[in-house]
């Protein structure tokens, strides 16, 4: 990870950690506050529910009493007793009274508890109602599970019922009340703004309803609900009926979605602040780190350029302090390095030319001695008047001429080395180069030539004649190294952005001590060699942007690798007339 990133991350961490650490106590405090608020709402809902149940009880008692005291009921009892009302006609009255009084259950019972008419269970007429018959005719409200007619047939329902006598001699009573059914549960849920569950004595679910949920962001509600774990399960239970033997119960729980959403909102805001703080710290950290590390980055890049050989690399960053001193020291160092290299190159060039002059003088000096000796011999023979002077003259002049030609060759080669023309490069197929060179060397007896140059190799960007000269030199050297025969291997392969042409022999190889001087001018171990062949070959390679390398082991032969760059498409196109 880069220093700038590390610094920015560190600064962001410093900003986030305190905020994150504060989240725990804030969340806990929020949860406690929510729980308190929820408990208060739950108590309030339970009070409202209790009050509503009391009101319903009173309404049931009043409704039943109202029916019992009505003139209709009195007339009903009278007609029934007098036989003026048929049982079937009487059976339909209970429903009328029940609906008129807004009751959910109503039956008219005889003294024995036989149903004369029933609104909530019309088919019970003629039977003793085991559920309403035991209700005391005192007007007091009791809770009972009664059976009433429903869409799927008779069904049990928890009800608040009362019973009142109809005045007259009929000894009839009215029993009925209000059901705590699904519709009532819905109304109670709306009243308490929560969920109401009505259960029988055994816990059997009789009705259940919830207040309509508030519209809100479900994500915030879920987050808040997760924060306020335990709120949803809280409820209050109100037993229905006698305290020692309740016949049912009503459970109320308050919707906690609103509180949960509020908690979620707070938490989301807190997390948003943390996120924004972290992003701000990250941006600030990057800005500060950028100021601090910019000179260092420039130094790193300049050092990389120096390492790549560019001793003119300089750091332009303006900064003070230790980093400024470091930048200035670096710039001074590279300046000194460049100067030192220039001087060294100058010295190397002088030394090289001295060496060349020394070797050239040595080469020239070698023919001069026989020439001088021949001249001296001729002069002495002429002075002595030797009768064999013509033979001596002929031999002497022939020797002088031979040495002069040798001198001329030395001069020509040197001239070639010194005046090597600039390459005129065109795209050249490597396989064609190799074919042209090998055509000049029919394999002598005992020597095998192995050739492995694919035709698909890309064209190289080279001066064909100069490249041929390099390969000719390498092949000639290889053949010279194997006078007793062996294997000459010429291969080509892609290598990076260029093509490597290898010329390998199975000769004795090159002595390790000769390797450092192998490409120096006038270094040769070959009889009659000028010592300029490999020097010229290396120079040609370098002037093509390529290189010439050798690998050798004593007794294992030598492998020269001539690497040339590939002709790029645009270059090739530019060359097309």
């Amino acid at each position, binding site marked *: 990870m880069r220093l700038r990133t590390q610094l920015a991350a560190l600064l962001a961490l410093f900003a986030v950690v305190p905020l994150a650490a504060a989240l725990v106590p804030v969340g806990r405090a929020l949860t406690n506050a929510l729980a308190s608020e929820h408990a208060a709402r739950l108590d309030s809902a339970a009070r409202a529910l209790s009050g509503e149940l009391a009101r319903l009880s009173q309404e049931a008692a009043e409704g039943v009493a109202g029916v019992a005291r009505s003139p209709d009921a009195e007339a009903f009892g009278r007609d029934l007793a007098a036989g003026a009302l048929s049982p*079937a006609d009487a*059976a*339909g009255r209970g429903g009328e009274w029940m609906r008129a009084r807004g009751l959910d259950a109503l039956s008219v019972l005889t003294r024995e508890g036989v149903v004369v008419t029933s609104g909530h269970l*019309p*088919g*019970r007429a003629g039977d003793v109602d085991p559920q309403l018959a035991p209700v005391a005719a005192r007007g007091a409200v009791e809770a009972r599970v009664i059976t009433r*007619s429903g869409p799927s*047939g008779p069904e049990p329902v928890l009800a608040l019922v009362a019973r009142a006598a109809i005045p007259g001699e009929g000894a009839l009573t009215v029993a009925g009340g209000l059901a705590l059914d699904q519709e009532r549960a819905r109304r109670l849920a709306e009243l308490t703004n929560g969920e109401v569950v009505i259960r029988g004595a055994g816990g059997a679910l009789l009705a259940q309803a919830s207040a309509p949920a508030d519209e809100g962001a479900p994500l915030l509600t879920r987050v808040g609900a997760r924060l306020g774990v335990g709120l949803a399960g809280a409820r209050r239970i109100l037993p229905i009926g006698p305290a020692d033997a309740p016949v049912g119960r009503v459970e109320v729980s308050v919707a906690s979605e609103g509180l949960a959403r509020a908690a979620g909102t707070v938490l989301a805001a807190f997390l948003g602040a943390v996120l924004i703080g972290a992003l701000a710290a990250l941006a600030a950290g990057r800005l500060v780190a950028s100021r601090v590390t910019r000179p260092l980055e420039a130094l790193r890049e300049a050092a990389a350029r120096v390492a790549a050989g560019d001793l003119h690399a300089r750091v332009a960053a303006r900064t003070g302090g230790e980093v400024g001193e470091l930048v200035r020291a670096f710039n001074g160092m590279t300046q000194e390095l460049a100067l030192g290299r220039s001087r060294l190159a100058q010295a190397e060039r002088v030394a090289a030319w001295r060496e060349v002059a020394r070797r050239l003088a040595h080469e020239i000096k070698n023919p001069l001695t026989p020439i001088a000796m021949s001249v001296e011999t001729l002069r002495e023979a002429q002075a002595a008047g030797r009768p064999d002077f013509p033979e001596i003259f002929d031999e002497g002049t022939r020797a002088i001429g031979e040495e002069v030609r040798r001198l001329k060759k030395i001069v020509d080669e040197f001239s070639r080395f010194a005046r090597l023309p600039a390459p005129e490069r065109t795209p050249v197929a490597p396989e064609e180069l190799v074919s042209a060179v090998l055509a000049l060397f029919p394999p002598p007896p005992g020597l095998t030539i192995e050739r492995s140059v694919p035709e698909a190799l890309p064209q190289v960007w080279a001066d064909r004649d100069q490249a041929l000269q390099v390969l000719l030199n390498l092949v000639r050297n290889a053949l010279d190294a194997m006078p007793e025969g062996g294997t000459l291997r010429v291969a080509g392969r892609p290598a990076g952005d260029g093509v490597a042409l290898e010329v390998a022999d199975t000769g004795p190889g090159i002595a390790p001590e000769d390797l450092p001087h192998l490409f120096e001018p006038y270094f040769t171990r070959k009889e009659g060699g000028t010592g300029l062949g490999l020097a010229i070959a290396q120079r040609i390679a370098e002037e093509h942007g390529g290189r010439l390398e050798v690998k050798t082991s004593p007794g294992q032969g030598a492998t020269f690798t001539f690497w040339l760059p590939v002709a790029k498409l645009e270059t090739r196109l530019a060359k097309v007339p």
Partner: protein
Amino acid sequence: MPTLPVNEPEPAPSPERSPGLAILVLVAALTLPLPAAAGVRPAYGGEVRVALPAAPRITDPALATDPGDLLLVRAIHATPLELDADGRLSPGLLEEVPAPEAGGRAFRLRLRAGLRFSDGTPIAASDVAAAFVRLLAREGPAPNAWIALPVLGAEAFQAGRAATLAGVQVLSDRELLVTLASAMPEWPWALAAPAAAVVSRGGAGAGPFVLQGLDGAGARLAANGLHWRGRPFADRLTVKGADPRAAARALSGGDLELVLRPEAVPGATATAPSPPLLATYAVVNWRRLGSGAERVRRVLGALDRAELGKLYARGPSAPTSTLVPQPVLAGPAAAPASPSAPGAPGIPGQARLVLLAAADVPDQRALAERLQVKLFDAGVRAAAELEGGGRFAARLAAEDFDVALVPVQVTALAPALAGGQVALATRGPGAARRAMTELAGLPAAAAAPRAERLTRTLDLVPLFSTGVRASAGPALQGLRIRADGAIDLGDLWLLRREGP
């Protein structure tokens, strides 16, 4: 008895006695006329307005089964035979009550001379034959097909295997020969049922009134001067539906002349109740209930039918014990005690079933609610589903129920025919043929146990049958309830107010 108008029917030479002797006795008690103005001759003119529990909708004799629809059919159409004041068969469109031939397998029907439909077209023997064919129509057999089922070739014709009804031969314009598949001496009683009415090809009837209009509010009719008994007394007849309170208000306010409801209208002059011939049967669907059907049948069979009718039928009622309603059967043997069932100990507590009932027939809802409670007490929850006319019939035909309460207005007073009518309504044509075959020609004493056995075989639980009460306004005269519960609307007339 009111004085008959012109074309007083000739007395039947030898009317077949109804096997239901009890019904004749009952009718004798029920047909007490309203207190007519003594010495006042019946007057023509005026409008008679009748209220029923629901407005009639159907005028086709082949399709009408509801009591209100049957009343309208009787007003528009005429039947080959009638019932006289004593509950005996008497000639209607026929010259005489046909005597059985070929051992009770054939009947020669001869029309009166000069009969015409209300549109003026003559009534021919082919029209009578066409009435039988219509009942056996291949597309949707009529609910009243029981009349023609005993006719020779009816089954083949109904199944599409025969192009004509082999047992009906038109001998002349006025005479046809009806041959039955097997002997049934009491078959002429079917010719007095409204379903046997003769209808012209144009749909016109030959009854005392002509339909002028029919809509949701009711039917409006005018007198038919071409009726075989002559023009009815009233110029117009209106039949509509009304709830009990509205009917009572209208009757007391002089806006109605007659209310036909199960219960009497308070303060109105009422006849004795009609014979309880609207019988209700619980049909247990074995295919859906499987092994539970027997248990359900036991619960229903254990019901106290007398109490059931008393508590849940607003009109006159009688317990029904067999396929044939009690009033049709005669003698003490026909009224066996309700089978005592020990309850239904094996019914699973969670069992649920669908209890189908007719929504537009009086007392069916109350009856369904009672059965719900009794089944619930036995551990079976039943969802009562009440359906109106067509839907009820469709669900019944498709057996889309677990238990169905099927009300049947019995219109034939012979046990074999009544049994066939009930069997057709509850179990289809096959059951109807079987019932008629088994009960045909039996004396009343023998018919009762056979009917009881048939009831068990057909998985029917008879419940009770009900009648109606006729509550009349002070001006209405001539009201008489026949032995089959029908009213001769043509006999009704209105007292005229004396001028100032």
